[in-house]
């Protein structure tokens, strides 16, 4: 990081977006950078919807005593006209001792204000909600790097499946995993850690089974059943695994993004299925889907031991995959 050696602070920051974690991180980063330059930096926060233009003017005017200040203006999209005018006027010639951080939800409301700030030279820190799976995976891997750990895309995907889409929870999970494991995290680690979650269990079992990794699939199945996960969603996940690989493999070559709309699946799922599809033949997929249908009947009351029915299906997948490969 070259930040500390060249203490050049950005005078106006526009934190654009409504992802709470990213917004608070951007604000904290700005304050931390200012404190590197001057440990006595004063940080004050204001609400844009209630702040009076006069108060802001006083705050931004050169201080008698010098010293750095960080002024955080929250909710820029709600700023009233006269406040906006004062800010835009200030941005033309900002005080080098002051860091003005404006957060803005990034929606249609107050968009003109945000645009004017950008035009006037404010530095933009993106903080929009991550809507794409790819971005979430990148967030998780970056988070591990930030914390001094390491995690592959597949492990990041497993973590997202287990924890969900809330960035705060994901960040908390990353830091806990790094603290507990020393930083190297793979899919199995995630499985062990989040074995209580139905989603991770079903899909972890299915991913391993479809990939022909019988030991991993059986282990994941054991965790899942041990944690009390119902066999029905696991059976559904197994069928979904075969269905996804079959549909993606059958769609032929093409980028995941091109196929996304024709198959009606998210691109990340297609990419994963394209990897899994290696080793499968059409005949093998037919046999696997038939096994998945039998499994569905078994877990719904047909079979004495439903765990055994799931195990048998995992082996049937492996046999179908090998049988097709000869």
């Amino acid at each position, binding site marked *: 990081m070259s930040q500390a050696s060249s203490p050049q602070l950005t005078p106006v920051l526009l934190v654009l977006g409504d992802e709470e974690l990213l917004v608070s991180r951007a604000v904290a980063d700005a304050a931390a950078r200012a404190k590197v330059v001057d440990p006595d930096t004063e940080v004050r926060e204001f609400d844009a919807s209630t702040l009076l233009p006069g108060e802001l003017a006083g705050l931004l005017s050169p201080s008698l005593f010098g010293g750095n200040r960080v002024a955080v203006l929250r909710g820029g999209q709600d700023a009233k006209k006269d406040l906006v005018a004062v800010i835009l006027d200030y941005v033309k010639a900002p005080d080098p001792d002051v860091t003005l951080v404006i957060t803005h939800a990034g929606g249609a409301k107050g968009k003109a204000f945000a645009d004017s700030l950008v035009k006037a030279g404010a530095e933009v820190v993106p903080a929009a909600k991550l809507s794409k799976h790819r971005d979430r995976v990148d967030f998780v891997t970056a988070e591990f790097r930030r914390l001094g750990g390491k995690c592959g895309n597949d492990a990041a995907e497993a973590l997202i499946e287990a924890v969900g889409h809330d960035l705060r929870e994901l960040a908390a999970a990353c830091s806990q995993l790094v603290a507990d494991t020393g930083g190297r995290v793979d899919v199995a680690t995630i499985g062990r850690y989040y074995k209580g979650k139905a989603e991770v269990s079903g899909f972890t079992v299915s991913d391993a089974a479809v990939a022909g990794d019988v030991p991993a699939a059986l282990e994941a199945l054991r965790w899942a059943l041990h944690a009390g996960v119902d066999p029905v969603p696991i059976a*559904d996940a197994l*069928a979904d695994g075969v*269905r996804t690989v*079959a*549909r993606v*493999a*059958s*769609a032929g070559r093409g980028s995941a993004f091109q196929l996304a709309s024709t198959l009606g699946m998210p691109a990340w799922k297609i990419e994963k299925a394209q990897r899994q599809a290696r080793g499968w033949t*059409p*005949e093998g*997929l*037919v046999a696997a*889907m*038939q096994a*998945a*249908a039998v499994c*569905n*009947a078994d877990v*719904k*009351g*047909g079979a004495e031991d439903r765990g055994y029915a799931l195990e048998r299906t995992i082996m049937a997948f492996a046999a179908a995959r090998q049988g097709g490969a000869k």
Partner: protein
Amino acid sequence: MTIVSGVDVFAHLVGQPEAVASLRAAASGTGMTHAWLFTGPAGSGRSVAARSFAAALQCVSKPVGCGTCRGCHMVQTGNHPDVRFVVPEGLSIPVALMRELVMRAATTPATGRWQILIVEDADRLTEAAGNALLKAVEEPPERTVFLLCAPSDHPDDVPLTIRSRCRVVTLRQPSPDAVADLLMSRDGIPAELAAMVASAAQGHVGRARRLARDPEARTRRAAVLAVPRQLSSVGAAFDAANGLISAAEAESDAATAEIDAVERAEMETALGAGGTGKGAAGAVRGAAGQLKELERRQKSRATRAQRDALDRALLDLAGFYRDVLANQWAAPVRAIHSDVHAVAQAAAERWSPESTLRRLEAVMQCRTAIDANVKPRIAVEAMMLSLWKG
């Protein structure tokens, strides 16, 4: 047949001369009993037989079941105060409903000769509902008659305890000719269309009439029969599965959406009249519960409608593979789907009889699987892949 057609209450019971004879005798006093079980394949007319018999029992004129007297007429239009029906809307008949109806069936007839309770799908009784019915069937009040309908008298369909107290009337699958005759004489369907739909419906009278009268039903059937030609790859098999499931959903939506909305509006009106006085909060809580219960029942009914629609499609598909097989063995039987005979013939030349048989079994297995509660999408996908592979 021609003398009584459209007049006699049994005229709508197609191709069942033996059953009609014994029912007519019972209604005139020979061999009457308090509990009857009507069995036979889907569409053979189990509920038609029960309703016709009920009309004959309430007939106040001669010959019995005349079809023109007040008694016959009221039963046939569903307005007779002494004839009640249990028709399950969901997948099963709840015990509360059964208890209430059994209790009412125990009262003396208001106007008719008998107090009659018709249970249209006795195979869909819950165990508790079955027990409630059993008590009544064991000791029937003097003027009460129970008419139960079920696919068969197998213990899976009707508990042995009930079965053993019923006289069983077994209905046959009516021949396509008998069904076509009925469609022509009663519904005025042209001969050629009547013959086509009668054989396509495989003995199911209601299905045949639907195909004859509803162009959309014919379109859906054509889409199903196009499936075997579309299965060119694994991906195509999944597309076909999706098409079949979506069509069943659309069909059931169309069938249930309107009645759902009416029911909901009626309930909201009834509940909205509660006012705002003392205890209104409790009333609102109760109302939410009632609406939830209504939604649950509607969902259960939609699920059943979807399964029924899907099963019809699967039967159509099975009929096609059966036609291909018949072609391959040069069997002297009439084609089920006479309108796509050429397609079946082409397939017969391309496939081996063994692979056709495997395909037919895949369709039947799919029906069994859905019946055993397998997720319909998974069962249909597995079937389509088998149909593709052969």
